[in-house]
């Protein structure tokens, strides 16, 4: 098939990005729900485990990061579902625009409304969990580096499960194992910072994961979307 299309690649990034932001603000509750979920999960730990500051501090970064993983998966279930159900993905595929670049634009918009708020909330969550002050900026840095990776990897899962009924459950089974390295590096870096140890190695690895996810995940997403149309 040699479908030659005159529009240059990448022309769709702007319109798709703006469209996603517009749609997100039309449905503010869908942005807020995962964030409220995140706050509720974190705030249950002092109530359920122990309010003792020293006990909370030892598990603060783990709890916050696991809650962030759960919140991300919650928001990713619908990442491609609406577009698949209403036929938008068909239109993208027929348009001749690069599906990989559309995926980049969608992931960027999604991170802006779902990932960035988690980063901004992290000092508050850290205070709830009695995380020592030295760990707070590092926790925010790991979230800033890690949440885009979660979004991109999760988008692969979302694209793969988009045609499946009850895709949400399948999605979590699919992506949680892939989230493990991010989780280990992020909590390791924060823990090292609290203990006064160097943590730039973990942060460097997380940056590498981010670069790998940004460059490779879009192609996997595009392939999965094409598959969903067959």
């Amino acid at each position, binding site marked *: 098939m040699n479908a030659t299309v005159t529009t240059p690649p990448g022309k769709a990034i702007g319109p798709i990005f703006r469209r996603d932001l517009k749609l997100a603000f039309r449905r503010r509750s869908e942005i807020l729900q995962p964030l409220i979920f995140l706050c509720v999960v974190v705030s249950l730990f002092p109530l359920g485990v122990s309010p003792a500051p020293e006990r909370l501090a030892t598990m603060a970064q783990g709890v916050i990061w696991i809650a962030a993983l759960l919140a991300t998966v919650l928001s990713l279930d619908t990442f491609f579902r609406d577009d698949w159900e209403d036929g938008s993905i068909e239109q993208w595929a*027929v348009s001749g625009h690069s599906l990989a670049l559309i995926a980049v634009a969608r992931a960027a918009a999604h991170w802006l409304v779902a990932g960035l708020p988690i980063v901004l909330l992290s000092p508050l969550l850290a205070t709830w969990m009695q995380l020592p002050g030295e760990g707070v900026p590092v926790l925010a840095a790991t979230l800033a580096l890690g949440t885009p990776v979660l979004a991109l990897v999760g988008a692969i899962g979302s694209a793969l499960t988009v045609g499946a009924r009850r895709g949400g459950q399948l999605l979590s089974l699919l992506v949680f194992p892939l989230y493990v390295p991010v989780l280990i590096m992020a909590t390791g870096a924060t823990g090292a910072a609290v203990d006064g140890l160097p943590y730039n190695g973990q942060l460097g690895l997380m940056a590498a994961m981010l670069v790998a996810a940004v460059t490779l995940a879009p192609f996997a997403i595009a392939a999965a979307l094409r598959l969903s149309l067959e």
Partner: protein
Amino acid sequence: MLQASRLTLERHFHPVFAPVDLVVGRGDLWVLTGANGSGKTTLLRLLAGLVTPSEGQLARSVAAAWVGHRLALKDDLDVLENLQLARDFAGRTDADPLDAARKAGLEMALDQPAGTLSAGQRKRCALARLLLSPAPLWLLDEPYANLDRDGVTLLDGLLADHVGAGGACVMSTHGDLKPAIDGYRELAILPAPPGDHW
């Protein structure tokens, strides 16, 4: 614009329809006919490049615009916003979404969210998007479905203009509704010959 030879698709080891030969050139209007389930939609999806054929050759030299069963309207956006979105996505800054909406008979519903439109209005909105697309080849799956009498006349007008301007269209229809345009050609989709299936 488009050339297909011996095109077919297998589902579950059985071809969906008998191999199809089709050549679409400038100014052609092809109507695919066949019973429900005969594979009209599948053939159109093949032509649009959404599905890869399991046998046969397909060559398309121009961009295509596609209107399928799923109309790709965003329920939270109003008619005009949906059309603006389509225009931006197609990269045509010269096209006027307002004008397209008027031509599709939607001027009364411009600021109505697409989710509150009737099925016929939604169809009109999706068809209005064709006017904002630079693609010379239109692939329309059951474009007459849900349209009222006015809508059918309107679609015939759009088709006549498009074909008259050197565009081309392949559309499917299952009913008695055929375009009221002279010179359209019909292609009946036949079921695959029985035999080699297991």
